């Protein structure tokens, strides 16, 4: 006794009941199954030696798109011989269109069929009806018979046509030069028949159910054991799914923060609206410095002015600007104005944040950093935005040195994924010595400037009560993101195309 899945079971029963082989199409109707499923079940039975499959091929004929008009109006060459007959058995080619009611092109196209059928012969410039042609006037040629038959029955097999008295072989030969008049397809008839073994097996066969879905009920009553699970196409593609994701630039910002946290830095914050004092004056930038120009810095209509810190600090900064104060510097040698220092600006760099932190607590050891937005009066284009992110950090330490600044920068850039650096001298108003970091970009085959750094000038640190070296650096972060994501236009970061957000991979 064997068990069978549903389709095989019913098919075997049906085959065993029949005396002889059955057409697959008929089995499909009988079993209410799709032909393809009958074939699949049949193939399984054949493989098990329970059934045999035989095939019979035949041709199926139908009229093509150009066949219908021919069936309706008759072949043009017939119209020609009829016209020639009316004209006394001969006509010049020039006369034919009028005589036959065809246009010149139509006549030209059917001449070769006329001649091939031997219905007419050329005599000088004229055509003359041949003996065959005269015979044809009363008898239809095989191609005409085929077209007429197909117009009647829509489709027909070669056997049926033969029965109807159509010489299909001769007809198809005549139609050789006429495309799309009659379409022929090779068809197969498949028969399934039970073998002896099949007939024996059918008497004892047992049905085994096959299911698509495993259900909670099956798990509860254990019936999953009595059924088969139809296999799925495990190679099939699925719809792409995109998770909710952090913005690609956010991942750069978070990586930057994480790197400094890993290196033992504390995170600090300061306001976007900043006094000129903390943004410029405390950093020893003279009050007529071009960076403070209205062209480059956003000054504010509201709020109108900022409070300055306690007088002691303001006074120390004033004196340092004017003549160096107690710092040993010669200063900038101009009259410093408190009013200008109280003017609010949108902070132009996050160094405003680190210098505030330094002033709040100048005592070593301290390591702090800030990742935040800064503002420059830039017209928006593919590489400039009026708002962008910077990271700034400082180290206040008795043992800090220019060499440890270079080491800190190197550690940072290594963690950000770069491994070739150059340190080049640079100038910034508030650091001395100053350095620019270049990293080697394989994609560009060149060194790219990544950020500026230095040791805060004594003119910066001493008025704020700090007497140990302070290492400082600042870096724009959009640039890093643009390299990482291959962006050509910085605006892409802030005017987000959702397709880009979805496509950018988390690993990038």
């Amino acid at each position, binding site marked *: 006794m064997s068990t069978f899945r549903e389709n095989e079971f019913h098919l075997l029963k049906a085959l065993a009941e029949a005396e002889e082989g059955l057409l697959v199409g008929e089995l499909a109707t009988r079993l209410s199954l799709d032909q393809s499923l009958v074939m699949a079940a049949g193939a399984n039975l054949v493989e098990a030696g329970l059934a045999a499959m035989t095939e019979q091929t035949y041709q199926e004929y139908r009229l093509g798109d150009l066949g219908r008009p021919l069936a309706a109006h008759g072949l043009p060459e017939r119209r020609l011989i009829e016209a020639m007959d009316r004209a006394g058995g001969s006509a010049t080619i020039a006369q034919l269109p009028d005589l036959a009611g065809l246009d010149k092109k139509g006549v030209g196209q059917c001449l070769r069929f006329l001649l091939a059928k031997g219905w007419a012969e050329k005599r000088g410039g004229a055509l003359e009806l041949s003996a065959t042609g005269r015979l044809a006037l009363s008898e239809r040629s095989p191609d005409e018979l085929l077209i007429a038959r197909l117009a009647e029955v829509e489709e027909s097999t070669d056997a049926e046509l033969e029965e109807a008295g159509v010489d299909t072989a001769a007809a198809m030969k005549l139609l050789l030069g006429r495309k799309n008049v009659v379409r022929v397809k090779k068809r197969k008839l498949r028969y399934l028949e039970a073998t002896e073994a099949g007939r024996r097996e059918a008497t004892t066969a047992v049905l085994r159910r096959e299911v698509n879905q495993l259900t909670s009920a099956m798990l509860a009553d254990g019936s999953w054991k009595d059924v088969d699970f139809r296999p799925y196409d495990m190679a099939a593609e699925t719809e792409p799914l995109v998770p909710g994701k952090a913005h690609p630039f956010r991942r750069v910002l978070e990586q930057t923060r994480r790197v400094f946290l890993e290196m033992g830095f504390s995170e600090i914050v300061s306001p*976007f609206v900043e006094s000129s004092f903390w943004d410029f004056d405390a950093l020893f930038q003279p009050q007529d410095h071009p960076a403070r120009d209205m062209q480059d810095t956003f000054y504010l209509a509201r709020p109108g002015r900022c409070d300055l810190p306690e007088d002691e600090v303001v006074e120390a900064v004033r004196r340092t600007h004017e003549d160096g104060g107690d710092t040993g510097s010669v200063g900038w*040698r101009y009259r410093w104005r408190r009013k200008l220092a109280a003017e609010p600006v949108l902070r132009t760099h996050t160094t405003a944040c680190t210098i505030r932190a330094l002033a709040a607590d100048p005592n070593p050891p301290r390591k702090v950093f800030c990742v935040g937005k800064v503002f420059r009066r830039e017209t*928006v284009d593919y590489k400039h935005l009026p708002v962008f992110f910077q990271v700034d950090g400082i180290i206040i330490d008795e043992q800090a040195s220019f060499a440890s600044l270079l080491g800190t920068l190197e550690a940072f850039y290594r963690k950000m994924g770069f491994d070739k650096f150059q340190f080049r001298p640079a100038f910034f108003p508030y650091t001395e010595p100053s350095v620019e970091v270049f990293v080697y970009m394989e994609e560009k085959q060149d060194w790219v400037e990544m950020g500026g750094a230095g040791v805060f*000038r004594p003119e910066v640190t001493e008025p704020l009560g700090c007497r140990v070296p302070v290492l400082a650096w600042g870096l724009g972060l959009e640039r890093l993101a643009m390299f990482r994501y291959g962006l050509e236009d910085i605006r892409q970061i802030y005017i987000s195309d959702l397709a880009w957000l979805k496509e950018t991979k988390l690993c990038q």
Partner: protein
Amino acid sequence: MPVVGIPVSLLNDRLAADLGRDELIEELQHLGCDVEGYATLRRFKCRHCGNIMEITETQQPPVLCRRCGADFSSAPQSLQSLGEGDVIRMELLAVRPDMFDPGGLARTLRAYLGAERGLRRYELAPPVARVVVHPDLSGDLCPRPAIACAVVRSVALSDDIIKEVMNLQENLHWALGRDRKHASIGVYDLERVRLPELRYGAVEPEGISFVPLGYDPADPTSSLTPAQILREHPKGVEYAGLLDGFERYPLLTDGDGSVLSMPPIINSEHTRVTDGTRSLFIDVTGLGRRLVGRTLNVLVTSLEELCPDVMVEQVQIAYPDGEMVTPDLTPQDVDLDVEATGLLLGVDLDATALTDLLERMGHDVAPGGQGALKVRVPAYRNDILHPRDLMEDAAIAYGYHNITPRLVPTMTVGGERRVEAVSRLARETLCGLGYLEVMTLQLTCERRCYDAMRLERSGDHVEVSHPISSEQTLLRPSLAPGLLDTLTVNAHREYPQRIFEVGEVTELADTDTGALERRRVAGVIIGEKMGVTDVRAAAAAVLREFGWGVRTCTAPLPQFLPGRGATIIADGEAGEREVGVLGELHPEVLDAFRLRHPAADFELDLTTLTGER
């Protein structure tokens, strides 16, 4: 930064070393020069006025003289080709004007490469000429008090050198002069100047007339008053702003009372330098004596480097408060502590090593006692304000590439801000709910954040005083408009869309700067069948992950459909507090952002939740 092209041949002639092309670039980079690379320049000379023009390989020869306006397309014979030459293109290092020209740059390189250590000395002839400075220039009528002058004799300038001097003058105006405001340079034909006594005075706007440079002295209408020059002469119009608020104008005249120049605007035609000029009178006027003196020092010492045959002669300057001579090339003495230098740089240095480094940066060095060195800084250096600046010079001579990077040995414990940790939780929650994070611009405008949102213009925001565009006039007071903008640009993408942003909004506040940032999170969803329940669920999920309960109260919020807006009240250990709003956006709001599907949003204030600023 402007870019300068240093002719390779002029530079190499003055280097006492044979450097390969790449080697030269490397050494310049070690000195802090931002080198772009080599290029070929073609030079042309205007036969009318002697002006020399440079073009790069990709540019077309000039059709007009930029100085006298001669038209070369109709008279090609007036344009003389001076041939071409290789230059090193580099960005000007504003703090080192003494390296702007091939002469000064070669001087730095010779010392740095060890061929000519220590202070470079220049011979100066004693003064013959004297400039009397009128007290008016120190007052409010005409505040341009400082002047420094020099006489240069035995000048035989080739076209190449003339171009270098012209470039240097222009670049000094940029770097030290702040476009002539702090210092402006005038160069005159000494033969046309009546010595010995000149006068630097102040003149009424209509008090004199003279023919300005470039005007035809034969034409009687060429003689202009200072006021006319400011109105009519191209240079007058360009620089008139420098004399804003002046009731009188600076004027430099010679012994005959004829005009040399009206600083900082224009020279007279009478004293124009020509091909035949053999001696020069030079002045630098400006706001401070130190700066005009340094500017003159850079100019005359570079001139000496460019044409070693010249003789520079000092000029006596008679200020109302005393006499001095310029150029004054007395070195600046700075004491430098050897140990402090080594500690700051993180490099092992003794007095001998440090002396060697400083000599290679062009300074003279002598022992100064108590572990210090007495450093004599050249008078053309304007950037040594503090001994720290010499430490940088030493570091550059040592070579940044030779310093071993290390880390500060002190242990510190780091930590993030609480609001960042909370922001991360909000992002994780919303990403888990299928929202995409976006970032939008911090600057926005009233039309977007009030009008489009159906809100009253409150004025409770930070406003910039001179915006770049009418789209960016204020710091955003809310995140919602930026999110809706993002939906607008994504109108053609698949719906529904769920996006969020975590970021700062700014409000006016009683702080030292008058404003305050708040960290917010906002989310919006758009699409058919999307609504208030979806955003309420999302906002509640965020608050729940923070450990807060949530309650919403219907509120009349104009940006939402009536009856479909609410305030969000968070409920935690510290009690209830209002932390945000949510609702289904009003069709007029959707229309203002050109959105064609229903949408709902929420906005939560994380600063209120964490209580941290």
